[in-house]
């Protein structure tokens, strides 16, 4: 019997971490209990994107969107909606600040402003079933490339589409393929870079988790075009769900004869394997990644020669990122012209971003190039929570920079984002509000690159350490005159004297925050104040005249620094105060001042 209703349970990592597998199990059990197991099918899908509201279940074909699923609500839901046909309002999504629930997914602002290409199958297929992918026209592009197109035509199509590398660099993909294709030699390799390491970024993980076959199909097409018959997906070990799903997908593709020898009886051979990376950030860099696959220590080498000439095992190698590969089948199926219609003059198509930080709708979004930052943060992201003010957005991870609120009309394309000093990067977007200290943010990212520096180049190894020490001093209230200049000097030298992208971009978070938020650095150094009230050593807590003497603060103060009689104004002993903020959290009368 055919199923009349499909329950698409999001089983991406974010939803799994809040109990999606239990939700799925309970749904299946309840549906069986109601005797509906022959009519209603429960499907585990990849990430739906709206991670803030997980666990998520979408009911198809009705398009009803249920969120924040609780195990104890499931029996009621199954009886009401799936047996009696009454959708349950209280489990639907209500936008922040509004009172009415939105029943269907397509009406929710978070979803309807998106344009899906790389994530075209998100939430619509079971990532572990190859038939589901085939049913959504999967492998059709590959068959088209295999039977109707020459390698030159494929390369030309990708060139015409204007697709640029989605890993961050933005190098034109078609051109990259052409260079590798032109190399002489019997054996060539293609690699999928899934070594996603930026803090707060999880686009590539989600693509593999929700649609692994899209990546395999993209690589098959690339292999045909370039003339490679071996491929490697370099995937980090700390993505266990992505590894399992990709392994399953590769096995299924092999069984169907879509990988291996004599594919589809057309004489084409392509083998694909996974290489698990140990999670070093530097291994996202092409030459370090290749070294890691070869079993060597993950350290970058000098370029040229570029991997296209001499890559894996010294042979011509083409490397693209997960999202880039996932775009390829769509371009071949729909044509380069349709792809090039989307976006701006120099940046075509769409880009996937993971929207995190101080934002209402944390999640994964795919938007057309040319959309403004403001649209992403406010229309899709739902703005900043708790009525706070939007301050800046960090793009491009540790290699990127902070774009301040006054530049919120910046459009998303490679060149416009670069012009701000940040970079497109792989797509991490960390939103910050007025309580985020920009010096602290710079310190956080520099701490990351400092730890992740492989140590090969002195300036990257020692220079970042010295910069970090200065930033730590500034945040501790020990900043000195000349610190800003020292930071700028070190930054320039690290950029100039590092071999790879990690070092060349490591100072960017400091440089962009200095560019847009220099006054915050100055306030820390000269006034010993943190304007965002985030750096604890620079804060002083005091009690104002609003105090009614309720003694609540005195009771919670760990070092007993607060004293005063009942019904009289209390005082804080500054020598004893450890600046923990417990009094501030406890006071109901706004009597605690923080300066």
């Amino acid at each position, binding site marked *: *019997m*055919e*199923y*009349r*209703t*499909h329950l*698409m349970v999001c089983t991406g990592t974010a939803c799994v971490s809040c109990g999606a597998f239990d939700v799925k199990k309970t749904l299946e059990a309840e549906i069986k209990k109601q005797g509906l197991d022959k*009519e209603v099918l429960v499907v585990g899908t990849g990430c739906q994107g709206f991670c803030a509201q997980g666990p998520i279940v979408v009911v*198809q*074909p*009705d*398009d009803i969107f249920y969120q924040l699923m609780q195990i104890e609500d499931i029996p009621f839901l199954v009886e009401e909606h*799936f*047996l*009696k*046909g*009454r959708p349950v309002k209280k489990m639907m999504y209500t936008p922040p600040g509004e009172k009415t629930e939105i029943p269907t997914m397509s009406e929710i602002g978070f979803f309807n402003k998106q344009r899906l290409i790389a994530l075209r199958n998100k939430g*619509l*297929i079971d990532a572990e079933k190859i*038939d*589901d992918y*085939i*049913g*959504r*026209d999967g*492998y*059709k592009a590959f*068959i088209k490339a295999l*039977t109707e197109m020459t390698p030159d035509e494929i390369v030309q199509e990708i060139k015409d589409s204007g697709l640029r590398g989605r890993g961050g660099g933005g190098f034109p993909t078609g051109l990259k393929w052409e260079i590798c294709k032109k190399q002489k030699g019997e054996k060539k390799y293609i690699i999928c870079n899934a070594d996603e390491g930026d803090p707060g970024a999880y686009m590539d993980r989600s693509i593999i988790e929700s649609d692994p076959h899209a990546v395999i199909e993209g690589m098959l097409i690339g292999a045909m075009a370039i003339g490679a018959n071996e491929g490697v997906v370099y995937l980090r070990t700390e993505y266990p769900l992505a590894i399992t799903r990709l392994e399953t997908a590769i096995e299924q593709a092999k*069984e*169907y*004869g*879509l990988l*291996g020898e004599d594919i*589809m*009886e057309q004489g084409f051979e392509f083998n694909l394997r996974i290489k698990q990376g140990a999670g070093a950030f530097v291994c996202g860099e092409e030459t370090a990644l290749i070294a890691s696959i070869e079993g060597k220590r993950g350290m970058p080498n000098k370029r040229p020669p570029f991997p296209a000439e001499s890559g894996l095992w010294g042979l011509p190698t083409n490397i693209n990122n997960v999202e880039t590969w996932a775009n390829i089948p769509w371009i071949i199926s729909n044509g380069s012209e349709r792809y090039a219609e989307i976006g701006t003059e120099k940046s075509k198509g769409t880009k996937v971003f993971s929207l995190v930080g101080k934002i209402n709708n944390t999640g994964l979004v795919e938007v057309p190039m040319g959309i403004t930052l403001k649209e992403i943060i406010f229309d899709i992201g739902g703005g900043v929570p708790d009525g706070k003010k939007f301050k800046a957005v960090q793009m491009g991870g540790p290699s990127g920079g902070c774009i301040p609120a006054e530049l919120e009309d910046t459009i998303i394309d490679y060149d416009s984002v670069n012009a701000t000093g940040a970079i497109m990067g792989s797509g991490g977007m960390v939103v910050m509000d007025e309580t985020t200290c920009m010096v602290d943010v710079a310190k956080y990212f520099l701490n990351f690159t400092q730890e992740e520096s492989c140590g090969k180049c002195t300036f990257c190894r020692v220079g970042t350490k010295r910069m970090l020490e200065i930033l730590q001093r500034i945040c501790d209230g020990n900043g000195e005159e000349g610190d800003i200049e020292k930071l700028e000097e070190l930054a320039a030298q690290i950029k100039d004297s590092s071999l790879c992208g990690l070092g060349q971009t490591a100072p960017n978070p400091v440089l962009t925050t200095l560019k847009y938020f220099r006054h915050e650095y100055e306030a820390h150094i000269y006034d010993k104040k943190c304007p965002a009230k985030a750096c604890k050593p620079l804060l002083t807590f005091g009690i104002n005249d609003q105090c009614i003497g309720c003694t609540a603060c005195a009771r919670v103060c760990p070092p007993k620094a607060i004293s005063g009689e009942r019904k009289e104004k209390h005082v804080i002993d500054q020598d004893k105060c450890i600046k923990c903020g417990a009094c501030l959290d406890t006071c109901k009368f706004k009597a605690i001042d923080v300066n």
Partner: protein
Amino acid sequence: MAKLSIKDLEEIRNKVKKTAMLREGISNAKITVHMGTCGIAAGARTIMNTVIKIVEESKRDDIIVTTSGCAGFCSKEPMATIELKGEAPVKYSDLTEDKIRRIFDEHVLKGKIVKDYALVIGSEREL
């Protein structure tokens, strides 16, 4: 499993296409069986089972079967609403297995409303 040819791949695609279309909500006809407590008591479950069976028999992949709550006219249950693409929905009442079969053959497949069983054309305005 043996390796597939291009033709085999196409066959799989056609086989699972219906699932894919259902999940995207693409359809030319929608059959809603009203499954309130009253409907279930009057036999809506049998109607639902029949509908699922005949849709499957028809081998049409563009028909969606769904449920909704009580239609508000409890004495006329079991009821079903047929909605063809681009046309006003039609509510049928006092259904039996035979009636729903005829409605399916004439209305859903051939586009001709079965006036003998039709209760109302169009639907209440949503507030």
